[in-house]
């Protein structure tokens, strides 16, 4: 079994995300392109003014899933490095909740991989958002994982 090591970053943080250090991390002279995605807190949700958000995660599984996304990116695209960071806890309007940076020799791979990363994160990484409004708070409607989970029926009990 081959183990491939990439110098990628996966983090769940409770302090503000610093995009610059993440961009610096993925940037290398053999690349030519970096694409970044910055997701941040909007001032409204479904036309209701938002006060602030709270994010919580199943942290151990979320980190495993983020690592899995990066591995899939390296399989699907010709990229160099990936940084995926999600913030937890209370976030104010305009603050970054998720930041993704991907470096690659060519732009098509950088764009494709960055887009795939955020789309997959939003469907499969166990993180939840609670939206706080003037008149109360609600858990945001979530997204469903992509495919039904296969049943491991054939596996004998060990």
């Amino acid at each position, binding site marked *: 079994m081959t183990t491939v090591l990439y110098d990628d970053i996966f983090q769940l943080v409770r302090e503000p995300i610093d995009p610059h250090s993440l961009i610096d991390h993925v940037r290398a002279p053999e690349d030519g392109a970096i694409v970044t995605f910055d997701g941040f807190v909007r001032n409204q949700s479904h036309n209701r003014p938002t006060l602030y958000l709270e994010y919580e995660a*199943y942290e*151990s599984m979320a980190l495993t899933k983020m690592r899995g996304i990066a591995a899939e990116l390296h399989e699907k695209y010709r990229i160099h490095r990936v940084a995926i960071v*999600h913030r937890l806890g209370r976030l104010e309007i305009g603050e970054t909740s998720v930041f993704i940076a991907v470096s690659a020799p060519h732009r098509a791979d950088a764009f494709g991989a960055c887009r795939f990363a955020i789309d997959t994160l939003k469907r499969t990484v166990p993180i*939840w958002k609670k939206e706080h409004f003037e008149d109360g708070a609600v858990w945001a409607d979530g*997204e*469903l994982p992509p495919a039904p989970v296969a049943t491991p029926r054939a596996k004998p009990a060990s």
Partner: protein
Amino acid sequence: MAPVSQTVRVKVLFFGRLKDVVGQSEESLDLTEASTIEQLFALYSERIPQLAKYRSSVFASRNQEFAAWDAVLHPGDEVAFLPPVSGG
């Protein structure tokens, strides 16, 4: 030898709105016989009837991987019940 009945200790986690419904985020539970994830959820639904209505939208994980509802639990498993995710 006849099989010896023994308890299966699992760790159970609830997140998001499920945590609010159940009133706690985590507990250790001793199952008196081999159970599936489905049976574990049914156990909680008996205790907290309003949990049942979330069944169709809930996902389950075992040991940090999405798991099938008919997966049989083993001692030491960590099971989590997950509402649709909304990160990003």
